[in-house]
């Protein structure tokens, strides 16, 4: 150990320790970082670096967001978006998990549908908007279909990987102990695939939100996207920024929630145990 490090260690031992839990420090850093960005925004707009009609000041935008939050129209739009996202994601989970288990378990079925899945998966769901607009119209069904279609693929693929990745030794052990097929599925294969499925659902949740919002923006189904479209058409720039911020907040909230769920699903997994990382 060098002398500098020794001195540092010594000072750590003797100096009166400022007891601040790492959680508080992290929260302070986050708050400072957000405050810094907001201040920077205010400065850029006020100094005229970007014209104020293009970039409203931070204070004006936050004020607009505050007054929006006191209107029923905003919350109704917010809930519409949440509804489209939740229904789309829910339907995608209900369809993709059983199909994924089926395609993952049977080598034969997996091979038979490999090409259709590989071809449909990378298709950007947003390309279906005009088709849905002309067939289902500007309805909740359109929005939910689009969100469900987009969310279906990540969950399907993750479920298939998860089922295939179950340790074959565990399965063989259970088989040699005479555990029936159905119990093997419920007790070994599915629990083993849960972390993969949780990851698929986290990815799908973001996709479903994007597509619900996109459907509202382009097709005019009620929700935050439609409100944003109106704000744009009427040239309400401040409201445009306020709505974009609100959409981002919805995005980060769902992301944090599903990351927490994923971590919970993975809790038993060695990679998540304390000290392993």
């Amino acid at each position, binding site marked *: 150990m060098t002398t500098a490090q020794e001195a540092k260690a010594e000072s750590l031992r003797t100096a009166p320790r400022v007891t601040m839990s790492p959680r508080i420090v992290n929260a302070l850093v986050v708050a400072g*970082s957000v405050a810094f960005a907001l201040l920077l925004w205010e400065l850029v707009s006020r100094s005229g670096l970007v014209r104020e009609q293009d970039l409203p000041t931070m204070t004006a935008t936050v004020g607009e967001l505050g007054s929006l939050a006191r209107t029923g129209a905003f919350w109704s739009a917010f809930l519409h978006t949440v509804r489209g996202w939740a229904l789309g994601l829910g339907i995608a989970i209900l369809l993709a998990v059983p199909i994924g288990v089926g395609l993952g378990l049977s080598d034969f079925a997996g091979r038979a549908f490999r090409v259709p899945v590989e*071809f449909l998966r*990378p*298709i950007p769901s*947003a390309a279906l908007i005009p*088709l849905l607009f002309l067939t289902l119209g500007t309805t909740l069904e359109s929005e939910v279909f689009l969100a469900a279609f987009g969310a279906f693929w990540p969950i399907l693929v993750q479920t298939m990987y998860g089922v295939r990745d179950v340790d074959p030794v565990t399965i063989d052990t259970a088989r040699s102990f005479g555990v029936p097929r159905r119990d093997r599925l419920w007790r070994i294969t599915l629990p083993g695939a849960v972390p993969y499925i949780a990851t698929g659902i986290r990815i799908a949740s*973001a996709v479903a939100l994007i597509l619900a919002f996109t459907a509202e*923006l382009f097709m005019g189904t009620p929700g935050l996207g439609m409100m944003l479209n109106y704000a744009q058409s009427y040239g309400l720039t401040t409201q*445009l920024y306020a709505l974009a911020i609100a959409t981002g907040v919805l995005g980060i909230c769902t992301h944090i929630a599903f990351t927490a769920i994923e971590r919970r699903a993975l809790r038993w997994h060695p990679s998540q145990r304390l000290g392993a990382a």
Partner: protein
Amino acid sequence: MSRRRAEALKLATEIAVPIAIVLVWEAWARSADSQFWPPPSTIAQEFRDLWLFAQFRSDVIPSLMRILFGFAIGSAIGVAVGLPLGLSLWARKFAMPHVEYWRAMPPPALLPISVILLHSIGNLQKITFIAFFCTFPVLLNTIDGVRALDPTLVDTARAYGVPVRERIRRIVLPAAFPQISAGMRTSLSLAVIVMVVAEYFSSTSGVGYVLLISKNTFQLVPMWAAIVLIGVIGYLLNLAYMMVEHRLLAWHRGWRAATPL
């Protein structure tokens, strides 16, 4: 049944099922005779007439250029910003709230703002918009890749007095590259999606623009052809990237195979 026969049967199914799906679709569309669901043969005809190669130059090339430029710029920024964030704990703590926020932002919510801020609905706005959203998968994967670096490697290099710039160029970047590459693949498929959305919102050319115009003029067959084309672009770009990645990471697989984990 012998193993070889089982394998042959599986291969036959793998080929037969997609063909069967298209045939059923064709038969169903012909019998339904709905203007919304043209049979695949009609779509294929239109696809050939439109894209091979009448509108290829005017609409497909611009879209592809926007995807590639946006992807390249976004990836470069992602690596350039991700390296310092991966190496420094405090920079990471400070920047993460913003990275997480913009990453979770649904891209279309920023479309009108991008038009207002950039005073453009042309390539400037399209490429900037695509690049912005392509940055985040690369950025996050660069951070992860740099953080997962074996500390012994860096310490050894430091003990031998290898300067910082050389350490980054010869050790950090190559070691993080498999992870960065995974991020780039996500970004590339994201670029296609963002391209469609951006062109659909405001543009004067591109595949998304053709999609919008054929919807507005109620031309179902060209619209289907555009949807198929977007699917083909997404599929082929992913395939091309996987082939490039396979070559670029050949050293990595060899190294992994030789190193017991």
